[in-house]
């Protein structure tokens, strides 16, 4: 097993080109690669497609201006958002109304499962969630199926060019451990992108994360970035 390259947040952000599709782990930016986000803002990377549970927060837990990917939206760097909830970032609705931002909403479990399906090599997801709702018209919905008398939607797997993880501890081989509610979408996103970058609060020696307690396996991680300690 080999050590994974450690990049600065700025170096990581530079890897992401205009027009890239990027998964961001995090739930209202808890468990999000916020240091890389800040560098993307500085770079002004354009026309991004974001895949995330939500669009972060306009105000952070201690009053910070912008918290997580909300800043990319406010800075008009995003052309499309695939998310489950954007109510904490009114700017999303605003830009959508203005016609400059495409928004695809999916149920939270469906988004997680479609990402997992991609990472796990499955052809799609058969879920009862969304039947008889607007989700039937989603670009990710392939149609309705009846199985044993119950209706299901067949949803398509979701893949990205990059997945940016927001982890707590990451060892030198890329094994990650998430504190509290940081885990959320990070573990599935780590399997569903061409390039996976794990931002962490602490780079720790191999062995500090017990083999039984690894949350994201080093084999899924391509690069490590040390972010801010909170």
């Amino acid at each position, binding site marked *: 097993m080999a050590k994974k390259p450690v990049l600065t947040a700025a170096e990581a952000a530079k890897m992401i080109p205009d027009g890239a599709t990027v998964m961001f782990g995090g*739930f*209202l930016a*808890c*468990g999000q690669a916020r240091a890389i986000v800040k560098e993307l803002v500085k770079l002004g990377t354009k026309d991004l497609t974001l895949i995330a*549970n*939500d669009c972060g*927060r306009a105000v952070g*837990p*201690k009053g910070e201006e912008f918290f997580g990917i909300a800043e990319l939206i406010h800075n008009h760097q995003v052309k499309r958002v695939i*998310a*489950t*909830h*954007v*109510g*904490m970032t*009114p700017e*999303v*609705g605003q830009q*959508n109304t203005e016609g400059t931002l495409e*928004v695809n*909403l999916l*149920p*939270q*479990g*469906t988004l*997680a*499962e479609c*990402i*997992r399906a991609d990472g796990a090599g499955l052809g799609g997801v058969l*879920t*009862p*969630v*969304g*039947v*008889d*709702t*607007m*989700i039937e018209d989603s670009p990710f919905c392939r149609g309705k199926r009846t199985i044993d008398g119950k209706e299901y939607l067949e949803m398509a797997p979701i893949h990205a060019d990059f997945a940016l993880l927001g982890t*707590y501890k990451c060892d030198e081989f890329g094994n990650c451990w*998430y*504190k*509290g*509610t*940081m*885990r*959320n*979408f*990070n*573990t*599935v996103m780590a399997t569903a992108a061409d390039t996976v970058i794990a931002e962490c609060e602490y780079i720790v020696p191999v062995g500090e994360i017990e083999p039984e307690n690894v*949350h994201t396996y080093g084999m899924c991680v391509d690069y490590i970035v040390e972010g801010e300690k*909170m």
Partner: protein
Amino acid sequence: MEKSEIKAFIAKRCAKELKNGDVVNLGIGLPTMIPAYLPEGVELIIHAELGIVSAGTSPKEGDPNYDPYHVVDAGGSPSSVAYGGGFIDSASNFGLIRGGHVDACFLGALEVDQEGNLANWIIPGKKMPGMGGAMDLCVGARNCIVCMEHTAKGNPKILEKCRLPLTASHCVKKIITEMCVLEVTENGLVMTEINPEFTVDQVKAATAAPITVAENLKSMID
């Protein structure tokens, strides 16, 4: 009934639906008041969409478990894990929800109809919030209970057929309001309990769907 008492009254009645050890998900607002009215000996496992199996209280700054950057609730506020709870990733967590491992979810409605269809996530043309985990919960929880004020500004919210975009179809099993308890059956809405402050006719007038009155109609206050 005073306006201020209504929510507490509904939450109190909702609490009677629960038994010790139930895994429940509580929507925002009124449903979060339910735990305050649990009978003695009834402890719940509060399931949180964000990834807490058995969520605890919301700690304030200065509390030992206050950790607003690592442990939050679905509103972004500081949260905690209860004694004996665990943290979980979103795919596994919603697997538990869809898989029928959550006993009940309590949530409000913009509209609910006699077929148990529920609309509570969007009003077209107004701001765009997103469904979050609501669709998953309505479909996945074994028991989906709507708890809300019976009407909105005097207009019925309980309808023959929802007009707003649905959150889920055929999901609501029971509706608990300050006026009555309605069960959703194959033959439509059946009123099983009534708040003695109201008459059956008053309930019917406030409801835009036919109501069958159960033979053994009970009082909500017992």
